[in-house]
């Protein structure tokens, strides 16, 4: 049975610019179910990143509502104040971006314990054990004590994914996470995401401009000029490989 985890209801987002109002999202309605690996593809400027920013409450919406069900709570994201939103986001959502943004002067394991220590959810020893477990999950444990400069881009992105999972969020949002990786490395990152869905029950919403990735999602939507165009259920599901 499908259990909704994110509900986007009549969401519009309009940016005011010197050239006039620019509608980035136009009346979006979308339900993401628990355990989905949802892809949203679209060209640059279609509104993909804006959509993610509406889901995790990073940016404000113009109208509509975003409801997120997590930890037994139903939260209307945009009705939280800034402090509440930041706390909620830290617990509920992990974010992964195209650029990995690891702190170069910290080891990989320290890069993961840092957000845990900042959030204060774990004791130091626990946070280290948890970080090592996450590094194991993304298959990079052997490099734990290295600095980011000494590992490849694909490996750095694995660490960024592990960091996004530091506070054990139910949902991961990923903005072009494979955008700066070659196709073989990108495939490995997709394997990590697929495993997180299949084995850990995470829900993932990923946006990308790369139409060739469609087959890797459990469901894929297309965003064109701020509007959702169609919906394709992927039969190949998480085991589908990207054709190179």
């Amino acid at each position, binding site marked *: 049975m499908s259990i909704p985890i994110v509900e986007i209801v009549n969401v519009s987002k309009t940016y005011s610019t010197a050239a006039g109002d620019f509608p980035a999202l136009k009346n979006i309605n979308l339900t993401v179910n628990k355990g989905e690996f949802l892809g949203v593809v679209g060209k640059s400027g279609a509104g993909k990143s804006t959509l993610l920013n509406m889901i995790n409450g*990073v940016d404000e919406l113009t109208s509509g509502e975003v409801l997120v069900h997590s930890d037994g709570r139903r939260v209307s994201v945009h009705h939280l104040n800034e402090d509440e939103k930041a706390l909620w986001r830290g617990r509920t959502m992990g974010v992964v971006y195209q*650029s990995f*943004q690891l702190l*170069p002067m910290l080891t990989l394991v320290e890069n993961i314990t840092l957000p845990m220590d900042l959030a204060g959810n774990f004791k130091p020893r626990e946070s280290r054990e948890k970080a090592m477990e996450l590094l194991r999950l993304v298959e990079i444990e052997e490099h734990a004590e290295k600095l980011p400069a000494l590992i490849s881009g694909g490996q750095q992105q694995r660490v960024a994914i592990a960091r996004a999972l530091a506070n054990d969020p139910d949902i991961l949002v990923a903005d072009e996470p494979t955008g700066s990786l070659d196709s073989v490395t990108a495939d490995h990152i997709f394997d990590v995401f697929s495993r997180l869905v299949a084995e850990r029950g995470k829900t993932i919403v990923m946006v990308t401009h790369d139409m060739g990735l469609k087959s890797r999602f459990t469901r894929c939507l297309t965003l064109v000029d701020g509007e959702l165009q169609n919906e394709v259920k992927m039969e190949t599901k998480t085991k589908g490989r990207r054709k190179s």
Partner: protein
Amino acid sequence: MKTKRRTSPRRTQPKHVLDKVSDAAPEAIIEMRGVVKKFSNAAGEFTVLKGVDLMIDRGEFVSIVGKSGSGKSTLLNMITGIDHPTSGQVIVNHNDIYTGVSESARSKWRGKNLGIVFQFFQLLPMLTLLENVMLPMDYVDLYDFDERPKRAMELLTLVGLEKFANKLPILVSTGQQQLAAIARAMACDPPLLIADEPTGNLDTRSSDTIIGLFEHFVQQGKTIVMVTHDPSLTSRTHRNIIISDGELIDETISRGLPQLRHRHMLEFTKLAEHKIYQPQETIVSRDEKLNHFYIIRKGEVEVVLQKQRSKETILSRLGMNEFFGEAELLRGGKSIANVRAGKTSVEVLAIPRDDYNRVMAESPITMEAVSKIVQKRLQEHRMADPRSGRK
């Protein structure tokens, strides 16, 4: 992420102080001695830095340039301790940062002594700009807990981001993200700022703001070492160090002959003989056959004409990074005037004639630039020398 901002027990007694190096140069904030860095991969061993010696003084604003793969980022990584040398010594702020130092001790030391800025900012996406700037203070446990937000806000104000302090990085422009990263780098008031392509990802206006900010820090006594591709930035630094194929080019050669290709500069660096002349000592005599091209590293030389039964005429005085001998080499090899050291001793680099001619033949742009100077000197010479009319 809304942080509760506590410091963990393992951060309460950090070791920030490494052992002082007794023979470190007093003015130097960075000394690299014979630094070699080798990488091994499936294809074999690859030497990225081939014995680098470098000294950077406190208060200098230094740019490092080099082609892709020349070793410039590796060089920076040796200074920051992000990577380790295969051999050699790196002394930063009088501390040998590699000998007998654990990774965690170096990490704490770095937090207090170095600010680092990267091309891709490396701001933590889940923290606001203010929280990102507070991170280093939390990490090395510097400044009172309650003072940290205030200091972070002051730094954000300095870089013009006070209005965006509570925004997440993704909601500000890339230029603003880099400004926040610079504020973060200065959080613990380090004496040394290291920047790797800090404007590589930014538009011209943002780049200009950032370089202006760097100049402000230098005026306050900070030392800045920056890797960059951007010539508009290198023109604003005190020193420009060029690295080519893992070796540093002599700065006298790169300043004296800036049009040369890096590989030719490196060749001259290796070929050049260092010579020191005492005050007024003759370096080249008129009509002597010249076997070298000279560039002045330190001091001043006088180009002198000794007229018959009359007083000498000083045609010109040449200073640091200027060269002599070129007119003669281009015109057949005989000196057209005497050249001697000025009132103080002078240090020159001498490049053998055949090598000079060979490289010039391969570098028409340099040849043209040198020729213009030759023409000017010959003009001065004709005006001053009664014998020149016979030629």
